[in-house]
C-alpha cells in the first residue's frame, strides 16, 4: 500500500497505548527480518548459492508475524514449502536458517534439508514440508502428544489455500475437533497454488466453511494487516487454550513474487501485481506506526537492522563449511542405518 493512501483504522488505533505500540514495533521487526531474509534468499538462489527451489513469502509476512507473536517457545509449529517466515517468526536463529539454505554444516539440518525442510526443534518449529498439506496431520499428532503427556502448548499448522483441496486437510480438521486437540489451523490464502488461481480449483465458500463443516470454528481475517492477524490469532488461541479444542484462521494475503524465486509470473498482469503490492503488510504497519507517533527514523532503523543481520548471516553462511560427506550416512536410523546395502 503506498504510504500516502494508508488509512489505518480499527480497534488497535483507538485504545492505542505504549504496550500496543511496542507490539506493533515488534511485528515490524519480525516482518522486516523475514522480508530481508527472503530477498537475500532469492538473490542467493539466483546466484546459484542456494539450490533447490526457494519459495519466498514476501507479501505474506504479517501472517507469520501476527500468529507467532502469540506463541510461547513450547508451542509448536508445522509449516510448508514456503516456510522461512514461520521459522523466523517462531524464534529460530536467522543465521542458522540461512546456513541451512546454503546447505552448510552450521544450518539447522546440517545441510541435509535445505529450504523446503527447514526446522528448528529447539523453538518448536517442527519442519517445513515438501509435500503440500503434509504438515497438517503432523501438527495434529504433535498436539495429541502434548495432550497425552499433559504438557501445555498448542500446535499451529500453516498451510496454503492450495492445501485445502487435499484430503489430509479435511481428515485433520475432523480429527482435531473429535479428539479436542489444541490446534490452530492457519490458512495463508494468497489466492494461488503455484501458477493456478485458487478460484479455478476450489469450489464452495472457502476454508472457513470447510473447517466449520468438520466441527472446527473459524475466522477470516485480512492477512496483510499484522494487527488484525495478531488480534484474531490471540482470540482464537485463547479459545483453544481455554477449551482445548481447535480453531481455524483464514488469512487472506498476497504473494508478491512468483511461486518460486525463479517464477516470473507471466500469468499475472502488471496491473494485478501492482494492485497486490499495495497491500504490503510492512508498509501498512509502518504507516500505522507513523500515525501512532513513531518516528520515520525508528522505522527505517528496523529495516536497516534487519538488512544488516541478514547480510551478516549470508556472509557467515557463505563462509561456512559443508558437512563432511559421511554425514550423508548419519541421522538415518539407529537400527540398520548407514549401511550401503
Amino acid at each position, binding site marked *: 500500500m503506498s504510504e500516502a493512501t494508508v488509512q489505518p483504522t480499527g480497534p488497535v488505533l483507538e485504545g492505542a497505548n505504549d504496550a500496543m505500540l511496542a507490539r506493533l514495533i515488534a511485528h515490524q521487526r519480525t516482518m522486516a527480518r523475514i522480508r530481508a531474509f527472503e530477498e537475500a534468499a532469492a538473490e542467493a538462489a539466483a546466484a546459484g548459492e542456494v539450490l533447490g527451489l526457494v519459495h519466498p513469502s514476501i507479501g505474506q509476512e504479517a501472517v507469520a508475524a501476527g500468529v507467532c507473536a502469540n506463541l510461547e517457545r513450547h508451542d509448536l509449529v508445522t509449516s510448508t514449502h514456503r516456510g522461512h517466515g514461520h521459522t523466523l517468526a517462531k524464534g529460530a536463529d536467522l543465521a542458522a536458517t540461512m546456513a541451512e539454505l546454503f546447505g552448510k554444516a552450521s544450518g539447522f539440518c546440517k545441510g541435509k534439508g535445505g529450504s523446503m525442510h527447514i526446522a528448528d526443534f529447539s523453538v518448536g518449529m517442527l519442519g517445513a514440508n515438501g509435500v503440500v498439506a503434509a504438515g497438517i496431520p503432523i501438527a*495434529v499428532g504433535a498436539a495429541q502428544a502434548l495432550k497425552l503427556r499433559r504438557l501445555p502448548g498448542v500446535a499451529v499448522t500453516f498451510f496454503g489455500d492450495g492445501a485445502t483441496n487435499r484430503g489430509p486437510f479435511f481428515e485433520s480438521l475432523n480429527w482435531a475437533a473429535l479428539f479436542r486437540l489444541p490446534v490452530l489451523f492457519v490458512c495463508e490464502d494468497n489466492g494461488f497454488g503455484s501458477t493456478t488461481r485458487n478460484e479455478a480449483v476450489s469450489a464452495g465458500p472457502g476454508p472457513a466453511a470447510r473447517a466449520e463443516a468438520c466441527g472446527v470454528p473459524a475466522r477470516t481475517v485480512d492477512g496483510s494487516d499484522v494487527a488484525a492477524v495478531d488480534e484474531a490469532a490471540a482470540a482464537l488461541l485463547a479459545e483453544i487454550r481455554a477449551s482445548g479444542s481447535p480453531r481455524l484462521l483464514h488469512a487472506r494475503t498476497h504473494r508478491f513474487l512468483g511461486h518460486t524465486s525463479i517464477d516470473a509470473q507471466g500469468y499475472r498482469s502488471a496491473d494485478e501485481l501492482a494492485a497486490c503490492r499495495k497491500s504490503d503488510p510492512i508498509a501498512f504497519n509502518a504507516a500505522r506506526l507513523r500515525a501512532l507517533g513513531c518516528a520515520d527514523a525508528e522505522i527505517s532503523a528496523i529495516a536497516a537492522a534487519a538488512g544488516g543481520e541478514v547480510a551478516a548471516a549470508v556472509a557467515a553462511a557463505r563462509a561456512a563449511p559443508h558437512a563432511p560427506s559421511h554425514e550423508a550416512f548419519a541421522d538415518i536410523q539407529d537400527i540398520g542405518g548407514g549401511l550401503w546395502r
Partner: protein
Amino acid sequence: MALMTCQEAALAALAHEMQEDPTIWALGEDLGRGGVFGQYRGLQQRFGAERIVDTPISEATIMGAAVGAAMMGTRPVVEMRIADFALCAVDELVNQAAKARFMFGGQAKVPLVARHPMGTWKNLAAQHSQSLEAWWVHVPGLVVAAPATPADCAGLLKSSIRCDDPVVLLEHKDLWTYAAEVDEALPPVPLGVAECARDGRDLTLVTWSAARHLALAAADAAAATGIEVEVLDLRTLWPWDRGAVLGSVSRTRRLLVLHEAVQVAGFGAEIAATVAETLGSILAAPVRRLGAPRVPIAYAPPLEAVYRIDQGRVLATIQGLVRG
C-alpha cells in the same frame, strides 16, 4: 513355558510395554473393540481411550498424526488394520516418517511402529491380501520386521516399540491363531537377527513370515529323502542378517529363498542377488527364488491357489538344487 497364539503373545507384549512406558499409545480403527484380530483386546478398558484410540477411517491422518506424536516424545503404535490399507498413507510413512530424522539433520526421531497385517487369509482377494515387504525395505529410514512365531510376534513387537526408528511390522493375518510354546516373559527379540529354525548342511533356505512354516515342513520332507536343509527365518528384513545368510550359504553352497509375496522384484531378489554377488564363485548350484506369480490375488480358492506355493513345489525345488 506356555502355549500361546501369536495374537495372545502380541497382545501380552503390547500390554506389558504400555504398562512400563506411559508414552506408548495405539491408534487405529475399532481398537476399543479389540482390533480386527483381537490384538488389542481389553486394552482400552485397561489403559483408557486416550491411549487406545479409536480413530476415524482416516489412514493418512492416522499415520501423519503418529509422525507428529512420535516427534513429540510419544511412541505411537499405528494399526493399519489390513496391510493393503496402508496404501492410503504412503506419503505419511515414506516421505514423512522415514525421512524426517534425516531431513531435519537429526533434530527429531520418529519412534513409531506401523503394524501391517499382511498376506493371504480367508480368501479376501486382491485388495486385502498383499505382501509388500519389498517396498518398505527399499525405503531408507525404515526398519522392517516380519515375525512368524508367537515368541517373535511378541519379542519383535517389544523391540519395535522400544526402537527409536519407524518400524514397519508385518504381522501375517494367517498366523494370529497359530500357537506355539513361548517363554512366558516374552523377551524382546533383537531387530536384525535371523533365527536358524533348522540346521542342515545341504542347502540354505532363507524365508520369513508365514512361509517359515512351509519351509520347515518342506525341510522335514526333504530330510526323509536324505537332504538336510538349513532354514533361516530372517525375522527382520531391514536390516537383514547378512552374516547369518552368508555364513550359512558359505557352508551349504546352495541358496533357496522362499516368500509369499510376488517373486518379481520381491525381497527375495535382494537376498538372491546379494548371495550371487558375494558367493557366486563358490556356489554348487545357482541361487534360486520361490515366490508368487505376478498376478493379483483372486477370490475363488482354485484361482487363489495359483498364488500360493505348496510344499511339493518347495520340495521339488530343493531336490533339484541339491541333486542337480
